């Protein structure tokens, strides 16, 4: 491997990766394994696997508030308090609202994890592949721009990352949700299996499957080499897993990269901007601010991967201005920050099932069943574009019925009854990227590191409203026919962002006039800058996106290193 900077100072590397979350961790692993001296810059503090999971082995009674937030925490954090995982056992892994302000031109719940590992410590671990129904979506339905890649381009890279990360799943042979390299699935519950059979019999185009997820259900040699073990079904993933049972940068890619001896990891280092050299016609490095001392410095490398998470990647690129690129690096077409999108998670349906009461479950399961998208999959069939996937669970809660007071109350607490099955689904809707849905930088207001505050101007549209309505209609119909009762639908009206699937702003495409990145996630106009996190997404589809970021990252590093060898970068 060309070691271009050998003998130079510690500010020179072969590759710089901005961010250590789910995609940055993969970039670090791939570069270091290929022998490149790699600098990973992380704006947050260091979080070491095992050592920095302070709550991971605490029992419920060891939390003073038994998991609840305090009134002060809620008052101080109106945004992040809305996140389901922001609870007493994981508050330390989330950004607090006041510490990192932004400007909401329209409400946007920006959920962030500033630490080594980023949100990979906190993610919901669902890993569904995209198919060509997804990659061909914009071209077929006439929105955004055509994806410059197809399933065949990314399929080997899905396999590559799945084997290393450890993905549990069932081969379901569905054209819309390709099978992968699966470890055994966890079990469906009796009523999930019942609903799966019912839907399979009654709808030719709808399916209920076990949700593919990044949990090691049967460790392979590659997982043992990472020091990771079988998922122990604790269902306490947000605390950090002492078994490495689920995939995170902290448990997997970062320590793997460290073992090569080629990784330099700098936590508490905020990237201000990318440095562009007009004479060389490429980026030469990054300008950073020490998170604690606020001292500025620069690091240099022949290739730069931007994996700061979708919004922050947009901020860094927009803030990387020069005479050549006054509106942000690589942004001649003015589209940087635009066509930003997300997943519509507003709709929830719940109900009961009074059948199969002779069965229950035993143990815990950190995942659930999944209903792949069926709407408009093969052809357009509704008055809205695209469709939605849904989660599905059926569990049997047990509870005591507190009765009266004194000895009577006490006795009642020593009994538990099994209730009927609780069933439910949440919608994961595709949203259409639009030019007016955008991020941009404030002209005056800056954060304490001197970086302009970002404005979020992203909203729902009529297509999203129609989709919510259809989700309620279709799910109510399916649930009713299956014999589920006491159905309740709820539109949370939650703001974009709370889905934590924000995507776009630096989209991939064929044409430099209408996109920022080419089919290798490489900036059209600055060939040694790559973006492989959520910011690169041309459209959103319905699948949880992290697996696709991982695959795109490994693929882009492979390409970048080959091009470096050829001397084109």
């Amino acid at each position, binding site marked *: 491997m060309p070691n271009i900077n050998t003998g130079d100072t510690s500010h020179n590397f072969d590759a710089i990766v901005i961010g250590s979350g789910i995609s940055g961790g993969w970039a670090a692993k791939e570069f270091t394994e290929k022998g490149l001296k790699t600098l990973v810059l992380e704006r947050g503090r260091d979080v070491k696997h095992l050592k920095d999971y302070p709550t991971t082995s605490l029992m419920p009674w060891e939390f003073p508030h038994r998991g609840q937030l305090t009134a002060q925490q809620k008052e101080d954090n109106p945004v992040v308090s809305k996140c389901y995982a922001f609870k007493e056992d994981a508050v330390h892994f989330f950004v607090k609202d006041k510490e990192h302000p932004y400007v909401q031109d329209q409400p946007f719940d920006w959920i962030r994890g500033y630490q080594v590992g980023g949100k990979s410590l906190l993610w919901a671990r669902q890993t569904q592949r995209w198919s060509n129904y997804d990659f061909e979506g914009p071209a077929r339905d006439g929105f955004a721009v055509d994806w410059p890649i197809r399933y065949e381009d990314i399929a080997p890279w899905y396999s590559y990352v799945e084997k290393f990360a450890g993905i549990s799943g069932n081969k379901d042979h569905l054209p819309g949700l390709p099978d992968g390299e699966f470890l055994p699935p966890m079990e469906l519950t009796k009523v999930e299996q019942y609903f799966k059979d019912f839907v399979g019999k009654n709808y030719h185009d709808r399916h209920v499957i076990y949700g593919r997820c990044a949990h090691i259900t049967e460790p392979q040699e590659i997982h043992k080499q990472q020091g990771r073990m079988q998922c122990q*079904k604790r269902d306490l993933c947000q605390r950090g897993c002492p078994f490495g049972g689920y995939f995170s940068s902290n448990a997997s890619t970062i320590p793997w990269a460290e073992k090569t001896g080629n990784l330099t990891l700098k936590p508490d280092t905020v990237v201000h901007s990318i440095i562009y050299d007009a004479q060389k016609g490429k980026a030469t490095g990054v300008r950073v601010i020490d998170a604690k001392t606020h001292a500025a410095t620069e690091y240099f490398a022949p290739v730069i991967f931007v994996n700061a998470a979708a919004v922050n990647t947009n901020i860094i690129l927009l803030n990387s201005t020069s005479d050549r690129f006054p509106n942000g690096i690589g942004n001649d077409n003015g589209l940087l920050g635009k066509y930003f999108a997300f997943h519509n998670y507003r709709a929830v349906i719940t109900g009961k099932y009074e059948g199969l009461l002779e069965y229950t479950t035993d143990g815990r399961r950190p995942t659930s069943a999944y209903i792949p998208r069926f709407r408009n999959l093969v052809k357009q069939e509704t008055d809205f574009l695209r469709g939605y996937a849904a989660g599905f669970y059926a569990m049997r809660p047990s509870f005591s019925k507190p009765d009266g007071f004194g000895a009577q109350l006490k006795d009642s607490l020593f009994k538990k009854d099994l209730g009927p099955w609780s069933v439910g689904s949440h919608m994961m809707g595709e949203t259409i990227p639009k030019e007016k849905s955008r991020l941009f930088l404030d002209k005056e207001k800056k954060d304490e590191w001197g970086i302009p505050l970002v404005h979020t101007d992203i909203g729902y549209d009529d297509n999203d409203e129609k989709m919510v309505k259809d989700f309620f209609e279709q799910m109510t119909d399916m649930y009713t026919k299956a014999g589920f009762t006491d159905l309740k639908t709820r539109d949370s009206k939650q703001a974009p962002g709370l889905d934590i699937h924000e995507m776009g702003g630096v989209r991939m495409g064929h044409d430099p006039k209408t996109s920022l990145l080419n089919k290798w996630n490489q900036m059209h106009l600055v060939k040694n800058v790559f973006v492989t996190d959520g910011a690169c997404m041309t459209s959103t589809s319905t699948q949880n996106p992290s697996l696709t970021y991982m695959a795109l990252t490994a693929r882009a590093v492979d390409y970048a290193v080959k091009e470096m060898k050829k001397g084109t970068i």
Partner: protein
Amino acid sequence: MLVSRRTVLKQVLFVSAGLAILPSCFNGKKPPGKKLNNFALSSEETDTLTALADTLIPGGEKPGAIQVKADQYALTLVDDCFTKADREKFLTGLKAFRKDWKKGDVAYLKKMEETAEGDASNFYHTYKNLLIQGYTGSEYYLTKVFPYELVPGRFHGSVLVNKG
């Protein structure tokens, strides 16, 4: 064969997991003792809360609310997790309740059980719910009554109820 291999594998996993967990166990800070940050109680009010906790979930052969510190948990919640408005409502209710109840007055508690309105009743039901939360979330309850498993190691989706 399969079973015994699984058992061995499990044991290996638990030992290694134990090692992995050790450092954070030693670092794990015990929750601090009860300290009220946002309000004050007179000693008479404290006595009432203690007496009511002891009446609602009395001690005996099996520990009651006081023995498992459910009363302290309840106050911690009122102190830290209640909004100012809810805390004031709680305290107003406590004052109203104290006026009419003395320890041993079972008839009054029966009346509270049947009433959903009024300051005293609001206090009574709020406090009772907190005590139940504190009791069923206590170390005693989650180790001796319905043991909580930190590491279940299993999930079975279809188990017959009478065997479960």
